[in-house]
């Protein structure tokens, strides 16, 4: 037991005598290796490599011929520590970034390790860069990757938007994993014009953008969940044109219908997110 808790004789110098490869040395290009940061791993009096990897005496000591070298306790090949313990190592310092909500969140329940998403030795951690973050998330979120490859999507694959613009990966179970408190508030960060309040509101808009939009991607422009007019007719059935069955008779080659073609219902009811016009109760003004 004493062997497992003993630290190496010379700290990082012990480690670097073997681990002098490019990947390992990249740690010195990161904020994890700043000598003046007294709370950082390489600050004065800190445990250097062993701050994160754990006591390394057994791992760095002499090994008899034929014996297997003991694994480093954390973040090595064949780690001996539990996933929870390894995450705990990161959280010791990153409480401010991650928050305690992590413990009650979805990712730890799914046994996701910090190191599954983050590369602490990388000068530019891919999950922290807008242009590369989505690919990291898609390693597990396969469905979302497929959705973003659909014809109409937010520009994630172009590297111009990241998942964390809308989602909070570290939030707790009750916090819905959105960047803001609700789905709508998250969407309104960039689409504040939809926020209102309007004199004439459209009920689903004020409650849940996801009732009409598929924000990860869709086969329909505007990332709509369904094609209009059927999307609108799933909630509107008033006598007259809202209730008619729009058939192929209304296609361009037959009797072109303004209820079906172009913007469909939105040819006239264009203020679907709400209208602030005194005569706009039908969302046409």
């Amino acid at each position, binding site marked *: 037991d004493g062997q497992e808790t003993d630290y190496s004789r*010379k700290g990082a110098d012990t480690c670097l005598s073997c681990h002098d490869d490019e990947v390992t040395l990249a740690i010195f290009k990161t904020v994890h290796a700043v000598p003046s940061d007294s709370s950082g791993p390489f600050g004065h009096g800190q445990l250097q490599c062993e701050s994160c990897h754990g006591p390394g005496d057994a791992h760095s000591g002499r090994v008899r011929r034929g014996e297997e070298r003991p694994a480093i306790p954390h973040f090595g090949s064949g780690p001996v520590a539990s996933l929870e313990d390894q995450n705990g190592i990161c959280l010791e310092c990153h409480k401010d970034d991650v928050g305690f909500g992590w413990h009650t969140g979805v990712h730890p329940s799914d046994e996701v390790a910090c190191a599954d998403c983050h590369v602490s030795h990388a000068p530019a951690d891919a999950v922290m860069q807008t242009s590369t973050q989505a690919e990291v998330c898609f390693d597990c979120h396969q469905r979302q990757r497929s959705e973003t490859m659909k014809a109409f999507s937010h520009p994630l694959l172009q590297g111009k938007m990241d998942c964390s613009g809308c989602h909070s990966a570290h939030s707790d179970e009750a916090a819905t994993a959105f960047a803001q408190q609700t789905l709508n508030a998250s969407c309104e960060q960039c689409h504040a014009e939809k926020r209102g309040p309007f004199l004439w509101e459209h009920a689903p808009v004020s409650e849940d953008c996801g009732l009409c939009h598929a924000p990860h991607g869709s086969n329909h422009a505007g990332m709509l969940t369904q094609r209009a007019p059927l999307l609108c007719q799933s909630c509107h059935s008033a006598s007259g044109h809202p209730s008619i069955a729009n058939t192929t008779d209304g296609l361009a080659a037959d009797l072109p219908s303004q209820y079906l073609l172009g*913007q469909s219902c*939105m040819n006239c009811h264009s203020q679907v997110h709400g209208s602030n016009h005194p005569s706009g109760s*039908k969302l046409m003004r």
Partner: protein
Amino acid sequence: ADTSEWLCEYCPFESGYTADYSVGVTSVSEDSAYIGNATGYDEEGVYANLDGQGRYANDSYRWRWRLEDLGLDSRAAEVRGGRPGKFDVRIAYRELPRRRFDSTATIFVQSTADTLSLPPGWVAAAQTTGFTALDANLQNRAIGSDRRVFDIGGRYLRSERLSFSADYRRQESDGLKIRGGSSFTSASLLPMPFDYVTDEVDFGVRYGDARGFVSLRWYLSDFENGAAGFRWQQPFSFSPPLGTGTFEQARAPDSRFQQLSLATAYAFSAYGTVLSASASFGNIEQDTAFLAYTTNDNLSPEPLPRSALNGDIDTTNIAIALTSRPLDKTRVKLSYRFDERDNKTAQDLWERVIVDSVLSGDPELNTPYGFERATLRLSADYDLFASLRLSGGYDRKEIDRDFQEVASQTEEAGWGRLRWRPSASVEIDVRGGTSQRDIDSYNEVFAASLGENPLLRKYNLAYRYRRYGDLRLSWSPADLPVSVSLSGRVADDEYTHSQLGITAGDEFGVAADFSWSVSERSSFYLNAGVESMQSQQSGSEQFAAADWYASHDDDFTTLGAGIRVREISGDVDLQLDYRRSDGTTKIDVDTAEPGTDRFPDLRSELDYLRLRLNYRRSERLGMSFDLRYQRFETADWSRLNVTTVPQLLSLGASPYDDRSLILGLGFHYRLGDLSPAVSQP
């Protein structure tokens, strides 16, 4: 540990400056709004470009900067850094081009920022076929916008326990949107100019230790539109004429959202228990002055009840979560969330002027929608063996709404999950569950007051029974350089109480990933997905029982593959990526007429191929070659020519048939230090 002799003599702490800059030219073979969307490569031609990134470091400070696509409309620049453990700051600027259509055309002339006028000599007609001056006045007008985002923020660590943060972000977005302009039985699709500005401010303070924290945050989002209204002259002729012939719509009103959030958490020593809680209280205000009821001075509606909405919404969000390990092999989680949108906007009776011509004579009451939503989740994990975890949970969601057909609805869900690791390299994760959404009652009288068929059940307010299952398999053998994962899901929704509206829905999806580290320097990946979403709905032309039925079926297949090879012949890196996605929407409408009416398939096909080669000529100099080919085609019966529909003057957006070859050649140069210096702590 005694670290007095831990000298870190071999530690190559970064010190000094290094930067890589790339100057290049890119040739784009075709105009394409779709391919230029977000990338900025929307027009045929040659683009000059500059990219770069750099770092500066000394014993105390770290700074990084990044320049991206400076020659394009998607340019971005960012500087971030600071003194780790003391403070960090970030300044960023980026632009995002939104390109929708470049095939659109209009007769409208933008005479002022808020007015679209008819061209001189316009000949109005009752139908588009009578627009004899159309061809002479049709002007190409691309639909799209540009977003500019400026972001500055930072964090100051007063001590290990106390930190302050501040962020400011300004977003400006301007361009043209498609806006439908109704004129009684006709309509025009208008290229509406817009100019939005959103400012966001976020201040926070946090105090915490190893056991817990408390934080306070103030967030402000202020949206400005600049103008309350937007006018256009209508091109159709009516007898008698409709009003003055100039109509007006309201623009999105200016609004302001503020929110104060308090959050706390504590890790108890007993049973690994962690309790977290947060409470946010916000307010949305909107007091943009109203437009008049009509642009027609010949009408005399009653005075507006008030000059502005004075919209006032209080928001409340409360979240509590608890996790604990009461037994060695058991973990329980409990969470509760409450969201409220308390819309305190006053109600009044409002007249309505129909297409600026007729008073409706039937004043209407505005309905300031609000809701309360409470969500309870309870779950437990039990490690039956070290390799087998069983989980189960119960979720309950209650929503109370104002001014809607259903005042109160409850959804209860139960689920189970099994995670099994038969070996260190294999994981099987199976989950399944059901949920039932019940409503107190569907207020058919209220629905009738809105003019809706009382048999309709709006799909988000309807009774729903859902069953679903998820499966995930992964295999990552330690002795082979490959990993494979497969995930699938099925879901089935039944709206058994709905006679009209959505009556059923189901979903199926499978996705697979394969990756192979061919060697230390090369790798290969492959991913593929299949997805299908179907829904059934019904309607009634006779305003009675269902007399038409429709099905809407979205099918997708996606494929991605790529290769990475480093240091070919020692100095060339290769990256090859290919993506393909196919989408098909099948719509059937079944009426009393014989046979089923099947629409032509709505199709989209996207191919994307990119080859990148980087050549290191020396430690400082390099070259890059970047080839992209992209093709996007759609078959879409809703897209039409400008005058296809007699009652609709459209913008003529045609289905996409875009392909573009993008060739880039760049030169890289590294400035500053080539290798990090060694300095002592």
